[in-house]
C-alpha cells in the first residue's frame, strides 16, 4: 500500500458514501480479523475517493491524503461519484442494486465466512475497549457509593461494605425471590433500599436514581460467573 494515501481515500470515500446511501462506515481492522477490503485504484495525483460499492471511484486532484476537503468540494465529489454510478447502471436505483450486490472481496488472511453489512456487529477492538471503560466507570461509581456512608445518605456512619466486603453475601443472583421478612417478592434494588433505610439509616432511593443504578452495577459486577438462581433461599 502506498504511503497512506489509498487507505485514507477508502475511509473518506466510505464516509462520503454513507451520507449518500445510508451505509455505515467500515473501518479497517488490523491483523487476521480485518474486514474485507475494497481495493481502490492507486492515486496518481490527488486523492482517490471510492463509493461503497467498491468499484466506482473518482480522483480529486490537488488534495493531500489525510487533509480534509472543504464541505462544498466534498459534496461535489459525492455528486460526481453518484453520477458515475448512475451512468454505469442506467435505469437502476442504488438501494436495490446495493442489496443484490455480491459480498466484497475478502481481505487477505480473513478466516471463514463473515456476515457483512451488519452495522450492529461491526465494532472494533477499540470500540470494545471504550465500552468496557464506560462500564467500568459506572461500576467504579457504585463502588465509591457502596463504601461511603455520606454518599449513601446515611446518618449513622454505616456504609454497605461494613457488612458486605467486596459485596460478599449480597447474592444478587438469587433475586427476584420471595423475601419472607418483607412479605413479598423482592428485587436486588428493594434489598439495597431496605439496607439504606435500616442499618444505614438513610432515605430510600427511587428506582431510576443514578446512585441506585450504580450500586446495582457494582454488586452485579462482583458476581461475574456465578449462575443465576432466581428464587434461591
Amino acid at each position, binding site marked *: 500500500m502506498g504511503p497512506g494515501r489509498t487507505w485514507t481515500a477508502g475511509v473518506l470515500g466510505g464516509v462520503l458514501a454513507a451520507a449518500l446511501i445510508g451505509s455505515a462506515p467500515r473501518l479497517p481492522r488490523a491483523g487476521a480479523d480485518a474486514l474485507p477490503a475494497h481495493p481502490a485504484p492507486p492515486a496518481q495525483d490527488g486523492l482517490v475517493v471510492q463509493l461503497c460499492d467498491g468499484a466506482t471511484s473518482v480522483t480529486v486532484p490537488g488534495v493531500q491524503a489525510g487533509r480534509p476537503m472543504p464541505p462544498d468540494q466534498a459534496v461535489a465529489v459525492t455528486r460526481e461519484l453518484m453520477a458515475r454510478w448512475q451512468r454505469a447502471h442506467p435505469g437502476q436505483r442504488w438501494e436495490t442494486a446495493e442489496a443484490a450486490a455480491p459480498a466484497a472481496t475478502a481481505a487477505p488472511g480473513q478466516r471463514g465466512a463473515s456476515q457483512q453489512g451488519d452495522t450492529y456487529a461491526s465494532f472494533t477492538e477499540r470500540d470494545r475497549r471504550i465500552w468496557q471503560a464506560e462500564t467500568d466507570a459506572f461500576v467504579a461509581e457504585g463502588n465509591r457509593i457502596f463504601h461511603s456512608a455520606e454518599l449513601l445518605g446515611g446518618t449513622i*456512619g454505616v456504609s454497605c*461494605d461494613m*457488612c458486605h*466486603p467486596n459485596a460478599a*453475601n449480597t447474592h444478587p443472583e438469587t433475586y427476584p425471590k420471595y423475601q419472607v421478612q418483607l412479605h413479598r417478592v423482592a428485587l436486588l434494588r428493594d434489598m439495597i*433500599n*431496605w439496607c439504606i*433505610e435500616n442499618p444505614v439509616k438513610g432515605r*430510600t432511593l427511587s428506582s431510576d436514581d443514578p446512585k441506585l443504578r450504580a450500586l446495582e452495577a457494582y454488586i452485579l459486577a462482583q458476581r461475574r460467573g456465578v449462575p443465576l438462581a432466581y428464587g434461591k*433461599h
Partner: protein
Amino acid sequence: MAARHKSVETKYMEARDTVLRALRHCDRRTFLKLSTATMGAVLAKGLVPPHSFQLVEVAHAGENAQTGTALAAGEIGHRPFTFAYISDAHLYERTLNQRFVRAIVKAVDDVNALDPQPDFVLFGGDLAQLGRPGELELGRQILSGLKAPVKMMVGEHDWYLDLGAKWQELFGPPTYSFDWKGCHVVVLQSVYEKDFWTERKLTPEQRMLTVAGLDNGVQSRFEVGEEQREWLKRDLAHVPATTPILVFSHSPLYKYYRPWNFWTEDADEVQAILRPYRKVTVIHGHTHQMLFNQIGNISFYGMLSTAWPWPYAPQGLPKLTVQMNRADPFDQFDGCGDGRMTVRADGLVDTIYSLWDRNPVTIRADYLVSHGKVDRPPAPQFASY
C-alpha cells in the same frame, strides 16, 4: 417502602413499649401469671436466662484419653476457670450512632448476668470505629459497667488515628502477660502494619479510614512484628512446656484470607515461638464470625462481634470451621453476640459462642485437637452464598 415496612429497631421499641405499658396496668395475679408463663417457655427451651449464657460443666479432667487430652503426670496444678469476652464493638460517638452502643450494652448486660461471674472479661479489640478519643472514652465508660475485671486488647480501629496514643492513655500498654490459675496468658498487639501512609501523604483521618475498610487493598497486612516477637520469646523463656498458654490477639495468628486482612503476615514465625508448648490456645477478634482452627499444637478460636457479622471469606476458611448460619439482615443482633471460654483442668479450652437470638453453640477443645474426629458441632441450616 418507608411507609409500609418498619425497621427492626422500630418494631422492637414498639413491642417493648406495649409490654411496659401493659405491665404498668397489671395486677399482682396477672403479673405472676405472666412471669410464670415466661419462665415456663424459657425452661421448655432449655434456656437458662440469659439464654446466651448457658452454664455448662467446666471440669473434664482425666477423661478422653482417646483424643490425647488426658491429664499427664506433672500437669496437675491448673485449676479450671472461665472467662467471658466481648469484642469488636466498633463504637461511634453516642450522638452519631445508637445502634452499636445498644449492642455493646447488651453484651455487658449478658456478662453481668452470669452466675457465677467469670474470672475476667477479655475485650477483644476494635472498641472504636475510627479511633477517635470520644469513641474510646465512650467504650471505656460502657465497659466500666462490667462487674468482673476487664482485660483490654487493642484492634486496628482503635489504633490508626493516632497510632495508639489515646488507647494507651486510657488502657496502658497493648502488649502484656500475666499468670492465672496455672495458665500463662499473653496479650498481643497484632495489628501493626508497615507504613503505607507516608508515601501516599495521607492524613491521620485518611489513614484510619483506609485501615477501617476491609476490601480496599491499599493498606498493608497485619503483623506482630520482630520487636514484639522478641518480647514474646523473652516472656515465655521461663514458662515450662507443660504450662497451658493462652494468647489473646486481635488478628487471627494464621493466614486465612489476605485481601481482607483476615491474616497475620508473620503468623508462621509467631506459631514457631509457641510450638514448644503442649497446650496453646489463641483467642482472636477481627473476623466477626464463628471460626476455629487447629495448627499443630495450637487451637484457634475467633470471637463474635457485637456490631455486625462478617461473611465468610471466599477462600481459605479453615477445614475445621463449621460455619454459623448466615445472618438475618432484618435482625440487628443476629450473627452477633459475645461468649465465654472455659479453661479446663487439662489446660484445653472449650468455647461457647453466645449468639444473640439463637441457641448458643459450644465448641469443645476435643473437636479441634482430634482434628474433627469427635464432638463435631452441628452443621448450619443456611450456609453462606
